[in-house]
């Protein structure tokens, strides 16, 4: 298949996207139902054309068509097929096409799952999403064409995908992440549509909620996967580095979390409307800002794509137009007359407001830390690095305060809680968490550790208060099962998500406190000890993989004389990049601990330098993330189902 077909498909997609902006908008202004109805088929057409382009590019990769520039740059004929497919988004141009495809997929999803949305709102939402699509398609076609060719002398072989990217994480992390990033464009579109129509009410919040939640849960999975992948591949045991690109994904997540909570308040109580709209705009703006930071070259990061100032300017202009116009619309159209609903200072509304503020402060702090070196350096005031020590120092206290609020929030009633009642209910949880928190380090290691006490106290506080709230909700039911069945998926979603967050916090705190590692020299047949485990090094052998040759070591891990695992760390030399040697660590993963082994350099007499890691509770970090995503998924299942069921019940009642 000729790659130019893909190029044409993109051009057609651009035409459809322009139509998607113009026609439904005209329909809204002229109140023409026909024009507004055009939004759905146009969205579908956009997706079809983008899919064609993607398919063409994918087949170019899978068939080793090295006349296409990015295939030559990112792929290799010996690469296994699934990595060839993942290589589509290995570089800048391909990743933009992935982004665009995902955006078109969200457009179609909105077109399909929006039966209960009034037509004029749907038209507005799709129009805004079309505008974003126009921006990205123009960006691709003008500056970053994935279908550029290397004619008339195409190379015979490609440069191979960067070995660090040849990992299952690469196949799934970017798509998940992009689903999240792009998903916030839906929340954004809903916010703009609400401002545009002037219909900023609780109904708008109810429509927006499932979309925002799904975007958020994809972003959660994407970030968790990225962290897991970095840990498995990079070899020094780190799982979060506060790298600018990581921060670019984390900031939308923080604001997105504030958004989903704020939407809940607006949906149920009709307050904080302006605030929620601003958060929706802010979340997507941060997604776009992230795109700029990663692709323009202003920030230094291992993750950033090759920089090109022209691209930087284009994205900046795009950013300016999208964010500038949305913030102007916000300033002009957001409601200034506050809703007259009253709520006391001790109410769920106020606590959720506090939650929002804390998350925003965290996001802003991460932003300022990320941008500070750039600001100071560009003004020639000096060159500084801002890294984990700064971000951890700022983030941990903020999250600690948030965790305290998280414990009280769910037990708090809407509108007003009685302080004495709340205190009575939560006191046992408070005492229990303090006891567990202080006891844990002694029980686990026989030694006091402030960080661990703080972590365990806060995490157990969230978990225990969640249990307290559950018990409270069950108190009037006829038995456990009846009570549990009475509770909605949305409630369970919240329960699981909050517990997930506590689990992640535990993972972070405990692994940071108790991780042990050692770099040592081992000869063949020699034993090494770490954290009560025995490691027996049994030498190495040469092996081959599909596109590499390797030295594969054998290390037997035992504890108390019992063999637990055989680990095979490797040192790989990829055929296409013979000067580069990759260390492939092997991990014995467990729920409560990871044992991690990597080979260093070969030393004299067949001895090797090896690195041994003992990392307790590290999997909890990502498990917590999965739980959060699961919780989010549950809440989505609830709202929509009920809406549809109610609709059909009403229809049935009317018909009867």
């Amino acid at each position, binding site marked *: 298949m000729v790659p130019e077909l893909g190029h044409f498909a993109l051009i057609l997609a651009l035409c459809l996207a322009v139509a998607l902006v113009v026609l439904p908008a005209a329909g809204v202004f002229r109140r023409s139902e026909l024009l507004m109805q055009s939004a759905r088929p146009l969205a579908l057409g956009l997706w079809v054309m983008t899919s064609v382009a993607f398919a063409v590019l994918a087949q170019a990769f899978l068939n080793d068509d090295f006349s296409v520039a990015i295939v030559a740059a990112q792929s290799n004929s010996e690469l296994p097929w699934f990595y060839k497919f993942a290589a589509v988004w290995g570089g800048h141009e391909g990743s933009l096409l992935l982004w665009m495809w995902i955006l078109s997929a969200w457009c179609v999803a909105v077109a399909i799952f929006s039966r209960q949305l009034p037509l004029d709102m749907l038209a507005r939402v799709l129009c805004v999403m079309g505008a974003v699509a126009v921006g990205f398609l123009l960006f691709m076609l003008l500056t970053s064409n994935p279908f550029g060719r290397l004619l008339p002398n195409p190379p015979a072989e490609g440069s191979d995908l960067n070995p660090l990217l040849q990992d299952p994480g690469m196949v799934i992390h970017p798509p998940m992440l992009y689903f999240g990033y792009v998903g916030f464009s839906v929340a954004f579109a809903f916010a703009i549509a609400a401002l545009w129509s002037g219909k900023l009410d609780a109904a708008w919040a109810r429509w927006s909620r499932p979309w925002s939640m799904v975007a958020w849960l994809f972003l959660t999975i994407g970030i968790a996967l990225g962290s897991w992948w970095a840990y498995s591949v990079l070899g020094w045991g780190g799982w979060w580095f506060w790298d600018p690109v990581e921060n670019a994904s984390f900031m939308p997540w923080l604001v997105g979390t504030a958004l989903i909570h704020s939407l809940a308040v607006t949906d149920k109580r009709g307050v904080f409307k*302006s605030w929620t709209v601003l958060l929706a705009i802010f979340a997507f*703006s941060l997604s776009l800002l992230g795109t700029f930071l990663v692709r323009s070259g*202003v920030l*230094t990061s291992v993750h950033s794509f090759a920089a090109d100032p022209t691209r930087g300017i284009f994205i900046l202009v795009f950013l300016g137009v999208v964010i500038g116009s949305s913030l102007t619309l916000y300033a002009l159209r957001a409601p200034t007359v506050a809703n007259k609903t009253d709520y006391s200072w001790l109410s769920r509304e106020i606590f959720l407001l506090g939650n929002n503020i804390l998350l925003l402060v965290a996001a802003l702090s991460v932003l300022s830390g990320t941008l500070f070196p750039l600001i100071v350096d*560009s003004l020639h005031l000096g060159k500084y690095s801002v890294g984990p020590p700064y971000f951890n120092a700022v983030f941990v206290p903020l999250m600690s305060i948030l965790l305290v609020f998280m414990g009280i929030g769910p037990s708090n009633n809407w509108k007003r809680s009685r302080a004495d009642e709340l205190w009575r209910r939560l006191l046992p949880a408070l005492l229990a968490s303090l006891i567990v928190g202080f006891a844990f380090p002694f029980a686990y290691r026989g030694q006091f550790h402030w960080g661990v006490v703080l972590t365990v106290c806060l995490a157990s506080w969230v978990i225990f208060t969640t249990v307290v709230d559950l018990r409270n909700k069950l108190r009037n039911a006829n038995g456990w099962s009846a009570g549990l069945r009475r509770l909605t998926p949305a409630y369970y979603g919240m329960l699981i998500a909050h517990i997930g967050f506590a689990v992640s916090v535990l993972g972070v705190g405990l692994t940071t406190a108790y991780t042990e590692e050692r770099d040592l020299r081992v000869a063949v047949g020699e034993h090494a000890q770490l954290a009560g485990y025995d490691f027996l090094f049994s030498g190495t052998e040469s092996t081959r993989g599909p596109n590499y040759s390797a030295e594969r070591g054998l290390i037997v891990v035992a504890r108390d004389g019992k063999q637990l695992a055989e680990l095979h760390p490797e040192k790989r030399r990829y055929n296409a990049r013979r000067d580069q040697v990759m260390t492939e660590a092997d991990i014995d993963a467990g729920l409560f601990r990871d044992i991690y082994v990597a080979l260093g350099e070969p030393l004299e007499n067949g001895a090797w330098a090896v690195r041994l890691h003992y990392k307790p509770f590290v999997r909890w970090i990502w498990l917590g993330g999965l739980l959060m995503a699961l919780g989010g998924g549950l809440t989505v299942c609830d709202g929509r189902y009920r809406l549809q069921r109610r609709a059909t019940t009403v229809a049935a009642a009317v018909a009867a």
Partner: protein
Amino acid sequence: MQRLKLFIPLIVFAVLAIFFFVVQKQIGSGAYDPQNMPSALLDKPLPVFQLPDLLSGATVANAVLQDKVVLVNVWATWCPSCLYEHPYLLKLAQQGVLIVGVDYKDDAAKARQWLQEKGNPYLAVLDDRAGTFGLDLGVTGAPETYLVDRSGTVRWRYQGPIDERVWSETLQPLLAKLTAAQGG
């Protein structure tokens, strides 16, 4: 008043956007390079060294630079950019520019052969095979060049090969200024 408060996010964004735009333009025009790392030694004295000369074996120390405006060029045979830079250094040396070489973490025999084959632009070459002087200079790789004035203070550091553009745009004017500074 309420309405005005709603303009705050827009104003903050506008400030940020203008900032990014200016920075992006500066990167595009080359006025600002985010990768550039200014030397920690700027306007500070050149670190003390005492190393054998690569060719003669005699000990060389800071005295060799005294009262001269000198380029200190860090190079090695394993560095491809140094190969690219070498002819230009020869040209500069012929024009009378004083250059002291630092053979950084290199094989001495290979280095001697290299100089023999390709020419020696250096006043003296320090055999820094362990890289300790390079570390004191804050070197991150090769080639790197430092401009040291008569008092032994580092005035300029360039990471990368010296070529016509660097010379005409930055190095030559600076060298002229420093040479003229104390009466020629």
